[in-house]
């Protein structure tokens, strides 16, 4: 399969998954570019131990998490610099919410939900995104996250409980 064919088959998958992580079109585009650069660089090394789709899912998840970490670091350093400049209103907000898959009338509520999702630990967040938003089965999620179905069940349950708790806290 050529690189162009790989791109055409998986571009929407990559873009949508990146969107669930960063909730911003510009950032999702940047992640998608990084993903396909990585695919191009490593496609000859791909041994076929998993399906191409699973492999691309994994790259997208890793690139999205790396992107968030890098962005948080930049914002944090900006935050500290601003603190030095005595600006008390500065706060860390990883993404500027611009999710095209969200209905306009639900935008505010969705932003609140995603703010809570963004506070979850990485693996819980990934399990929740794959199962709840990407509608993957537990087996598919386990393959992508390279763990057992049992751990996926546990991760999802913990993510759901924590999210419900956080949502209740932010509503008050």
């Amino acid at each position: 399969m050529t690189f162009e064919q790989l791109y055409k088959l998986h571009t929407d998958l990559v873009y949508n998954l990146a969107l669930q992580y960063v909730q911003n079109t510009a950032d999702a585009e940047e992640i998608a570019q990084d993903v396909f650069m990585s695919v191009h660089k490593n496609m000859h090394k791909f041994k076929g131990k998993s399906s191409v789709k699973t492999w691309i899912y994994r790259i997208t998840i890793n690139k999205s998490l790396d992107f968030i970490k890098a962005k948080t670091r930049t914002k944090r350093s900006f935050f500290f610099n601003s603190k030095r400049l005595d600006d008390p209103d500065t706060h860390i907000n990883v993404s500027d919410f611009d999710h095209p898959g969200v209905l306009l009338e639900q935008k505010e509520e969705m932003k609140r939900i995603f703010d809570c999702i963004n506070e979850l630990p990485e693996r819980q967040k990934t399990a929740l995104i794959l199962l709840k938003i990407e509608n993957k089965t537990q087996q598919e999620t386990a393959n992508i996250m390279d763990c057992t179905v049992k751990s996926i069940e546990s991760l999802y349950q913990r993510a759901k409980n924590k999210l419900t708790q956080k949502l209740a806290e932010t509503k008050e």
Partner: protein
Amino acid sequence: MELLDNIKKVTAPDALWHKVNERVHKQQADIVPMHNVRAIAAAVALLFIANVVFAVQWTNTTDEVSLEEIIPEENYSLYE
């Protein structure tokens, strides 16, 4: 949390392919000078080895020549 079920799948922008393609070409262009760097490094290494081999051979050659062959004994005397 049920609202998460309402998230729609969207199509990736067309411009994305052009951006990816551009970066791929740029990456490939960056690889070419690396080949040149490797070739130059290999040539320098070969020159160095050749130099070492030459030096060793030259040293061996001079070892075999006795001083008498280079400086004729009758022309010089330390006691004169």
